[in-house]
């Protein structure tokens, strides 16, 4: 603090509290709506105090789903989302860490060519090449499979770059010492590089878990079978046109369930989350 200006500190707190309230308001209303019955929501204006139907709403969406729209239970969708998020996060970390190990610690022909090949993928989000990617995956017979859901999203340059940056900061003496002691590259990787990379891996896991859980366009194209829906897709399928026809109490319970895991990850692993976010963009 440079100087003591009580009124400025007051304004700062007031602004932040206002910001927190505005940011939290949609979440609060969603929570309230998930504890009411449909009749209570449709009655304008809906109550801003939680109702008493929380348990039945959540039980219904988890085990049976909404009657309108898809009508599929959300429980299996949560499992699909979890599988998708974990496979993408672990997959990205695994293939990227070995690729950047090769790029940083070896000299071989075409090294730069491969590096640029990975680099270029940084530029092309799935949204840009929607139709052709869909066609490739359907030609490979991967529609409605976990492989089709996850594999195309596993290739990403961000993780490779993060590990490359990190490996470049690892002192050369470590590799030298390992070589003098007679350790081969794989031994060096397993016993020295992997333990050193733990925090980078944790940071990356948090970011990629959220990325995988929140995927929308890709599962929308790839899953036509209710059993393969992810939670986010499930919400979309529950919304029918027309405010009143949609079973908002169930949609909102599902929205709460869809937000819970990634938000919990961000809040509980805040330190790694911030580290991962700042480093992947460098």
């Amino acid at each position, binding site marked *: 603090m440079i100087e003591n200006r009580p009124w400025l500190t007051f304004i700062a707190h007031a602004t932040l509290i206002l910001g927190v309230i505005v940011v939290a*308001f949609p979440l609060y209303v969603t929570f309230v709506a998930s504890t009411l019955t449909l009749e209570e929501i449709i009655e304008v204006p809906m109550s801003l105090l939680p109702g008493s139907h929380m348990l039945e709403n959540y039980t219904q969406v988890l085990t049976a789903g909404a009657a309108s729209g898809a009508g599929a239970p959300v429980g299996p969708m949560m499992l699909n989302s979890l599988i998708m998020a974990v496979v993408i996060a672990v997959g990205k970390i695994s293939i990227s860490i070995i690729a950047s190990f090769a790029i940083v610690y070896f000299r071989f022909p075409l090294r730069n060519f491969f590096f640029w090949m990975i680099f270029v993928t940084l530029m092309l989000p799935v949204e840009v090449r929607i139709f*052709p990617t869909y066609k*490739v995956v359907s030609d490979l017979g991967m529609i409605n499979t976990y492989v089709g859901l996850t594999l195309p999203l596993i290739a990403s340059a961000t993780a490779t770059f993060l590990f490359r940056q990190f490996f470049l900061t690892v002192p050369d003496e470590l590799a030298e010492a390992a070589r003098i002691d007679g350790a081969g590259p794989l031994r060096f990787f397993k016993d020295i590089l992997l333990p050193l990379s733990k925090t980078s891996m944790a940071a990356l896991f948090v970011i990629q878990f959220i990325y995988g859980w*929140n995927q*929308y366009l890709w599962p929308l194209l790839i899953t036509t079978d209710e059993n393969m829906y992810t939670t986010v897709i499930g919400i979309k399928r529950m919304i029918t046109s027309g405010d009143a026809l949609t079973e908002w109490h169930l949609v909102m319970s599902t929205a709460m369930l869809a937000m819970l895991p990634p938000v919990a990850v961000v809040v509980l692993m805040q330190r790694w989350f911030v580290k991962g976010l700042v480093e992947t963009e460098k």
Partner: protein
Amino acid sequence: MEKRVFFRSAWLPYALLAPQIAVTLIFFFWPAGQAVWLSFQLQDAFGLKTQFVGLANFAALFADSHYLDSFKTTAIFSVLVAVAGIAIALLLAVMADRVVKGALAYKTLLIWPYAVAPAVAGVLWAFLFAPSIGIITYVLKKNGIDWNWVLKGDQAMLLVVIASVWKQISYNFLFFLAGLQSIPRSLIEAAAIDGAGPGRRFWTIIFPLLSPTTFFLMVINIVYAFFDTFGVIDATTQGGPAGATQILVYKAYYDGMKAADIGSSSAQSAILMLIVISLTVVQFRFVERKVQY
């Protein structure tokens, strides 16, 4: 940068690279190449016949007023999202940098929307603003504002902007906070001793020193508005009413997957790729400059 110490092996580096290269080839290069290839072709309605038409798809696109409108919509949308998101986040970050008590609590309470999926963010705000039952709609109507984004284009635009900004504020906030905390205290102290008040210190010292962060966030937010907001739009307005919120990505998706106009959709994808590539180049040139700074 290069390592001085390295290992030698004739096959190991290739084996280590193989998984990533394989996935990249199958799911990036093949489809991206196809997108470019298909953009030069015309398919009949049943996909039975294809014909090489050169740049005809592109020419048709730029003669199509819907496509040009979509360009304009995307420009307005992304500028609104980027400017609003950056301004609000900067205000909050400056305030959060000032407070000592409760700083961590504020931070935690402001960053969680990052974890919300764009589609879910869209659903949340669509519910608050729902024409007949929304709680904000109710308040607006009480104040004499006729709110119905299902019918009114500018209101639909406002809805998707609010939902997109809400989700992105946390990201901008974190980067501004990190930027603010890296500004040397001595600079600000010196200005304070010279008699510069908080407002003056902000505009003459803090804001210029934050400009690399601001520029970086500008690029990131525009990319976000171009592509990641697909979920927000599909879950709320679906490009409507009458194309008022149909951004380029949504149009490419709609024309390819719903209208089955593959040539046109691929041409749109190719144009989008060009846009992404130029944005990435801008961003990397900036990163190079940041290293010097």
